[in-house]
């Protein structure tokens, strides 16, 4: 019964997201990897993973699990229902000293179980004027644990304008979700070089600002 309600809720949330944002996916030429992978995206809104989830083809969607902060998604029964039951999120504890579980181990075991992850390496929602914050090192520790995993950069455009932090009414604006070609961890790559390479691969997918002319 609960799983039926969760499925119905997922369908309603996705329908609502599509009705408001008319979201459109842009795929890389070679398509997405069919084996489990890590989608890493820019983060500016609570709705980010919903959009990525909504545009993924059904087969890939069912194996995709967003990685989200446990503090927020366990805050209330409704948050808990949406986070764990509807979207089957991998809930990690962000505050290091209060942790009871190792987030990297949680993510790695989800991958081992055949799931893909939707990850936001900025670690928090970007409220600044900068297009992308520096990456946290979690994604690096994940690839050192699972070096063969495919990493797919995903740029979510415009959702921060649809629903900025603190607003309750979404503004209907057209959003796009651009998937880049899959990347892999290079042998012997240092943490800084790897994070910088991932960050620039993601930035390369962002569109030029509107009104900037030709």
């Amino acid at each position, binding site marked *: 019964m609960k799983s039926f309600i969760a499925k119905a809720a997922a369908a309603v949330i996705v329908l609502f997201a599509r009705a408001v944002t008319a979201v459109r996916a842009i795929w890389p030429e070679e398509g997405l990897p069919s084996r489990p992978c890590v989608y890493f995206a820019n983060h500016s809104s609570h709705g980010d993973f919903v959009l990525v989830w909504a545009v993924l083809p059904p087969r890939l969607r069912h194996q995709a699990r967003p990685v989200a902060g446990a503090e927020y998604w366990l805050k209330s029964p409704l948050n808990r229902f949406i986070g764990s039951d509807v979207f089957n999120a991998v809930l990690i504890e962000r505050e290091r000293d209060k942790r009871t579980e190792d987030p990297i181990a949680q993510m790695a075991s989800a991958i081992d179980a055949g799931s893909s992850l939707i990850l936001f390496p900025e670690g928090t929602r970007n409220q600044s004027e900068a297009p992308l914050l520096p990456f946290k090192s979690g994604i690096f520790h994940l690839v050192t644990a699972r070096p063969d995993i495919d990493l797919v950069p995903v740029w979510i455009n415009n959702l921060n304008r649809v629903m900025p932090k603190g607003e309750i*009414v979404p503004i209907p604006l057209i959003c796009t979700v651009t998937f880049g070609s899959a990347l892999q961890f290079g042998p012997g790559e240092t943490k800084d070089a790897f994070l910088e390479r991932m960050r620039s691969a993601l930035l390369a997918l962002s569109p030029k600002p509107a*009104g900037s002319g030709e």
Partner: protein
Amino acid sequence: MSAASSDLLTLVAGIFGVLILASAIGYVLQQRLSPTGSNASIENLNARIKAWWIMVVLIGIAFVAGRIGVLILFGFCSFAALREFVTLINTRRADHWALAAAFFVVVPLQYYLLWAEQYGIFSIFIPVYAFLLMPIISVLRGDTERFLIRIAEVQWALMICVFCASHVPALLTLNIPGYEGRNVLLIAFLVIVVQLSDVLQYVWGKLFGRTKIAPKLSPSKTVEGFVGGVISATLIGAALWWITPFTPVQAGLLAFVITLMGFFGGLVMSAIKRDRGIKDWGNLIEGHGGLIDRLDSVVFSAPIFFHIVRYWWSL
């Protein structure tokens, strides 16, 4: 069967005939010139024809559903067009409530006023009330950065996508003696003439186009396409006089005004796209681009057509 529905039926049969012919031509062209899908213009042509089928069926369903169907259809068109427009303009956090009001208050209210047949308030609601109230909502948050540009762009979006577009269904509210119960055919006349003019300009341009008419704005538009499209669409408009309250000459003259406004509307909307560095307004309609790409000429001609008919024909 009433005269209106039998005329509508004849019209629908005619449109289906044209679409079947277009699909057949598209199919032959594809077999001959692009069997593997390698010719982009032919693939685009066929995508456009397919989209036309869908648009014709949707409009047909709205017509069958009557006044409420037409209002809902154009209400949704306004909503989707406004969404395409606002996506491209300069807005800031401070405009959040003003934009929410534009989508969730102004759009439904404008169409409700048509439903309630309150012409007086319908015709000034956006140019007066929205014009004054939207900047007030925006200013309350105290953000002055690019303020004039922001409020001007939102008002322009509302005028084009909601106010002007709502003048298509507004044709239903006109009271024309001897034409009772047939107003939906006026909408058909307007939409058919404008859209055929666009299509014919494209076809004439592809066949005989040599001289660019506005190279800076729209490199695909040619003098030959413009002249051929306007003349042929005007003649088709005259030939459609039997669905209107007009004589053939009047129908031709009105069609001429409609096609001219449509052409210049297309130019204006192209200039905005150039300014924003985009090719299409969106991706809603396969092969055509966004909804505004298809609606731009209708939006510019609808209010003029409405007011000419209202002044000379309506009570």
